[in-house]
């Protein structure tokens, strides 16, 4: 046979050789005709490396491209192509964009190995950084930060600093991406990078902000003081950011909340004036504020929720829409965040999204199930109604159904046990022994968890299983579970006798060792319930003792000792017991010998010393006449307590604590982490901070400005469709009205900073700021260099934008939006165009108003809308600490 295989292998090898040669020849021929299939090109790339150098040196772009393609193919196949570095680097300044792209790909891979040569390319990138095309700028920045040459770290830093101020959000995004790269290359640059991040945090475009936060998480994950002023902005931009950015932001805000707010689950409910102010509005506001508390009686919900920091609520509120995201990473980030920072009542929201994720493919299903198992262990009630989603499909692989069984164990309850019991009948009959075993455990578990509903059906089921004619493994499992149930007192005394006799009768058939061990153990333990049968049981055990496995022998010895205490006075019994002990004393296994010796000594006082069979006892120390006397009360009590341990698990029996199945060790890992799935800390894992004991000092989080921002960002999707095009085009004179707008929120909050921080009681007394003054200041003020610069930047962007009809409409819509605040005050009388786009604008502003309204209603401790003079909310928002913002 082996010979046959070697021959076959040799044949295959030579066949491969031939085919290789043939294809080589084919390629050669094809080349002559100027035609080559891409597959062959890929397959034979390394065979033609010899002329790559020539090709790269060629003057023809076509040859260069050909050479580069070969190199990339070689890299794709995992081979080393670094020897061509000098030839490749020469082409870095090629005018052909495609060649350049490939050269960049090559550089990124090998620059670290060839640092000196890589320096040759730096100049080109630096030049490209000033290219009028934003795509070129971004590409240069990407490659420059990607070639890992420590000498140039300061150059990269400069490039990043330049990119940060770029007018294109895409370049800014790439600059933000470059920060972690540089940080890993040279951690000593951290201070400068942090200051770069600080600037980038002021970015107001949803496109860039996600990558900025990614950089933040990487470089300075704990410098939350940088986040304070942008907190509200982040909350609000969250929904408009790209999906990967959302993951980063949710992650950041989760960590932020763990350090800045108090644990919402330990806050003591207290009725304050705020809570009484709007119990009804909370109901009316609909989707966001009210629904989270639906599971708790209304009154309670409000008292608890209002003591939570309003910013904390804002956070939860901005998270929840993301549960509807199509991207599982986003959904899971939010689930983790809600799990770790939200009140327990909020957790109900995560159920449906999690179940939705189960359908995103088998791989994701596995990871989601591990998380459901952990959430379910903490809050089994959440998944009670969804139990059918954890039923096992015939196609599920083992690692899936193990998790599903775990979840089923935790979520079974009085409301869903019927369906579950019907379902697990299938699993018990499965041809996977492990699944059958788990299902049997679940059946027993139902009896323990829901004794009223499940006892009779569960026991009947297990007894039926224990009589299964064909499957000894199943019988063994059923007996084990019956034994556990008896041990835990789940079987009524009235049924016990019948059950034991039933089990005893199994011994006559063909059974697995595990079954016998369990039955023997049970009979020993509960021998007093069936006194008429014990002697028979012991006789059967003694007869087969020699051929049993160790576990059965141990069980038999234990049974013998117990029976000695129960009925050692019966002469036949005593003989049998001594016989068993003698057999065990000479067993091959020393465990059995030791146990037997020990138990024999313990049980001796109880045994009737048969006079006519001294042979059995020759080895024993002379007992004299002591054994004939009844053992003292004390001895009886002591021996009983030693041998019989009905409530605890027996040392000789596998100790299943079934209820443990429902209580997973609460994982200390953060949800959504790899460490949680693998259940060990992975490099780079950092656990969440514990909640602070006392409320951290109040800081300004830009919450006033956020209302303002909310308008801009809620409009983003419908109206911010300007496309600025690199400043190649003639500037237009459009944008004067919009210019200050872009950076207004921060300016606005700044304007308010000269006020000293007010205490909570003062705040309630304060009147809403005068709106007219505010607006005035808002449009005219331009203090602070940063802001001047950023305003100029914004102006540049707008000026450079292409003048299209879209832009006109959009600027109109902007004006319209600007004035919507005024309109609310009744001061706006401008005409509104009736075209379709404006109707969408109106809808949007309605949307805005509503969300603002719900915000006010939901969070009583929040600032009222500064633009809304009709608002009669009596509280003012916390005054910002000016120090924080000016720094």
């Amino acid at each position, binding site marked *: 046979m082996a010979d046959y295989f070697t021959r076959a292998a040799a044949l295959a090898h030579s066949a491969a050789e031939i085919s290789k040669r043939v294809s080589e020849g084919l390629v050669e021929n094809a080349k002559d005709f100027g035609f080559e299939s*891409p*597959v062959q090109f*890929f397959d034979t790339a390394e065979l033609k490396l010899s002329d790559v150098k020539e090709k790269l040196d060629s003057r023809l*772009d076509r*040859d260069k*491209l050909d050479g580069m*393609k070969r190199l990339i*193919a070689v*890299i794709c196949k995992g081979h080393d192509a670094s020897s061509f570095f000098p030839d490749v680097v020469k082409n870095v300044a090629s005018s052909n*964009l*495609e060649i350049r792209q490939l050269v960049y790909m090559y550089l*990124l891979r090998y620059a670290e190995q060839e640092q000196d040569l890589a320096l040759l390319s730096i100049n080109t990138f630096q030049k490209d950084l000033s290219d009028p*095309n*934003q*795509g070129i700028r971004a590409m240069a920045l990407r490659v420059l930060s990607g070639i890992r040459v420590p000498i140039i770290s300061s150059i990269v830093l400069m490039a990043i600093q330049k990119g940060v101020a770029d007018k294109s959000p*895409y370049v800014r*995004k*790439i600059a933000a991406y470059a920060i972690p790269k540089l940080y890993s290359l040279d951690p000593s640059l951290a201070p400068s990078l942090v200051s770069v991040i600080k600037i980038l945090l002021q970015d107001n475009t949803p*496109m860039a902000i996600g*990558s900025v936060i990614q950089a933040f998480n990487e470089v300075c994950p704990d410098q939350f003081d940088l986040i304070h002023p942008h907190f509200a902005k982040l909350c609000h931009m969250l929904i408009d950011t*790209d*999906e*990967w950015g959302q*993951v980063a932001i949710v992650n950041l805000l989760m960590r932020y909340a763990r350090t800045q707010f108090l644990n919402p689950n330990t806050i003591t409910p207290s009725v304050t004036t705020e809570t009484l102010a709007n119990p009804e509005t909370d109901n009316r506001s609909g*989707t966001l504020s009210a629904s989270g508390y639906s599971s708790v009686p209304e009154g309670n919900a409000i008292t608890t929720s209002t003591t939570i920091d309003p910013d904390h609520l804002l956070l939860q509120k901005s998270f929840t*829409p*993301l549960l509807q995201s199509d991207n*599982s*990473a986003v959904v*899971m980030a939010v689930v983790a965040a809600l799990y770790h920072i939200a009140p327990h009542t909020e957790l109900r929201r995560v159920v449906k999204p999690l179940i939705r994720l189960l359908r995103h*493919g*088998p791989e*994701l299903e*596995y*990871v989601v199930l591990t998380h459901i198992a952990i959430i379910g262990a903490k809050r089994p009630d959440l998944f009670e109604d969804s139990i*059918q989603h954890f039923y096992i499909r015939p*196609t599920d692989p*083992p690692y899936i159904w193990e998790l599903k069984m775990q979840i089923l164990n935790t979520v079974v309850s009085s409301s869903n046990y019927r369906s579950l019991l019907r379902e697990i009948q299938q699993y018990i009959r499965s041809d996977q022994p492990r699944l059958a075993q788990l299902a049997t455990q679940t059946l027993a578990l139902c009896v323990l968890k829901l004794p009223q509903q499940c006892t009779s059906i569960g026991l009947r089921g297990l007894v039926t299983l224990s009589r299964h004619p*064909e*499957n000894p493994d199943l019988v063994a499992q059923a007996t084990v579970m019956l034994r556990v149930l008896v041990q835990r007192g789940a079987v009524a005394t009235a049924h016990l006798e019948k059950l034991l006799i039933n089990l005893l009768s199994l011994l006559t058939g063909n059974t697995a060792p595990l079954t016998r061990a369990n039955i023997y153990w049970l009979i020993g333990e509960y021998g007093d319930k069936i006194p008429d049968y014990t002697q028979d049981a012991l006789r059967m055990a003694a007869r087969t003792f020699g051929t049993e496995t160790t576990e059965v022998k141990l069980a038999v010895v234990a049974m013998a000792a117990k029976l000695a205490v129960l009925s050692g006075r019966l002469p036949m019994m005593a003989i049998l017991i001594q016989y068993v002990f003698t057999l065990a004393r000479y067993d091959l296994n020393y465990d059995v010998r030791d146990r037997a010796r020990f138990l024999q000594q313990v049980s001796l006082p109880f045994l009737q010393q048969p006079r006519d069979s001294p042979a059995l006892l020759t080895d024993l120390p002379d007992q004299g006449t002591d054994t004939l006397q009844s053992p003292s009360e004390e001895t009886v009590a002591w021996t009983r307590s030693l041998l019989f341990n009905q409530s605890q698990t027996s040392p000789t029996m596998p100790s299943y604590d079934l209820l443990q199945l429902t209580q997973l060790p609460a994982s200390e890992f953060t949800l*959504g982490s*790899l460490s949680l*799935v*693998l259940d060990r800390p*992975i*490099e*780079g894992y*950092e656990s969440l901070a514990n909640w602070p004991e006392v409320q951290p000092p109040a800081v300004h989080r830009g919450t006033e400005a956020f209302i303002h921002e909310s308008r801009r960002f*809620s409009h*983003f*999707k*419908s109206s*911010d469709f300007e*496309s*600025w095009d690199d400043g190649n085009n003639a500037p237009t004179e459009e944008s004067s009205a919009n210019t200050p707008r872009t950076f207004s929120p921060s300016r606005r909050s700044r304007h308010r900073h000269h006020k000293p921080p007010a205490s909570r009681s003062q705040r309630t007394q304060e009147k809403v700021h005068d709106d007219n003054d505010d607006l005035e200041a808002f449009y005219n003020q331009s203090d602070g260099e940063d802001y001047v610069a950023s305003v100029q930047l914004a102006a540049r962007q707008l000026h450079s934008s292409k003048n299209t009809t879209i832009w006109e409409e959009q600027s109109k819509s902007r004006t319209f939006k600007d004035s919507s605040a005024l309109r609310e005050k009744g001061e706006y009388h401008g005409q509104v165009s009736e075209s379709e*786009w404006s*109707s969408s604008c109106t809808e949007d502003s309605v*949307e805005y108003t*509503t*969300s603002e309204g719900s915000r006010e209603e939901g969070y009583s401790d929040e600032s009222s809308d500064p633009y809304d003079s009709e608002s009669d909310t009596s509280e003012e928002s916390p005054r910002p600490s000016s120090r924080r913002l000016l720094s």
Partner: protein
Amino acid sequence: MGLAVASQFIKLLTEQPINTIRPIVELSHRYIGVYIHRSDIVFLCLVASEVSPFLVLEFLEKFYQVILEYFGKVNELVLKENYLTVTKLLEEMLDYGYPLTTNTSMLKEIVPVPNLVSRVMQTVTGSAGLQDSNLNVGTSMIPWRRAGIQHTHNEIYLDIVEEVDFTCEATGQVTSMDITGKILCNCLLSGLPDLTLSFVNPDILDDYSFHPCVRIRKFEQDKVLSFIPPDGQFKLATYRTKAPQSYQPPLVMYARTDVQDGIHHLTLEVDAGETFGKPLRDVVLTLALGESTANLIGKADHGDISIDTRTKVVTWKHKSVKEHTKGLTLRVSYTSNKQQSVGITAGFTVETFAISGLRIHGLRLSNERYQFYKVKWPVWFSLEDDINLKL
């Protein structure tokens, strides 16, 4: 280094079937493999430090979807043939381990889809026609839609596809039912259309997720889908609905088994129910008989039977089954040393038939005006079914 670890994974693959390897598997003391298995190709990602496993899986899935969208299918040949495009795509999608551009419409601008024209151009001029303008990624403020799209015919198509999971007893009684649906959209509209899709009965949606273009807050308030669509085909929404009361599935199965002289006889009977005059198409019934079976023989009066002796799966196919057809019967006999459950699943499609009863009220267009504008909705409601029959 990465390759050495990846070969660990390949070794693992040769040792055990892929469906027994966990999607997250430790390959060495330092590296963890996260993989997805699609179209018989494994996409493996090596992870050395803490990262959300969802992020990795989602990225791999996106990568697969992008390749699929670029080349129409994914197999070894396609990957080899387009290795350059695939490498470029990966380069654009991932930057230093961070997902960068995963949006297909943006990617298509940076990395052109290879087609016959570009291939010819490439052979002739040596360039794939990549221009500076191709690098203008991110010029549109809406990430999923590039600026300046023009179509001569402005059309939009909507499809609703629903999938139903039933679990039946052997007696044909439905014990659990789960309906999930998706709204597929093919948008061929110029400019920046702002669309609003409203439903007659949005309340039946129990859980939903949307394409990033949908304004979620708007849906939560008004129960309408308001969005600026990406160009081309995309999945607008997925949803799950509560099962309608007393609903009878369009396909009812009854099964029984007998054992005679050690031979198991399984009889499966199928009835088609009410489908409003439309036939059930592509009815496929799959019987997974388990490892321990042997000597499979199948017989049916209608349809085609195929038996896979390796996986012990019997497949019974019908091109089309008229409604109210009764008593299609399949008889399978086999030997088995164990008594065990048989998993039976059924799949079929019905056109113009929404099992959840979700109905579209209308699609409103604002923001753009077209001379010629056509909405096709719903072209069909389709229903794919997955019935699990318990014996």
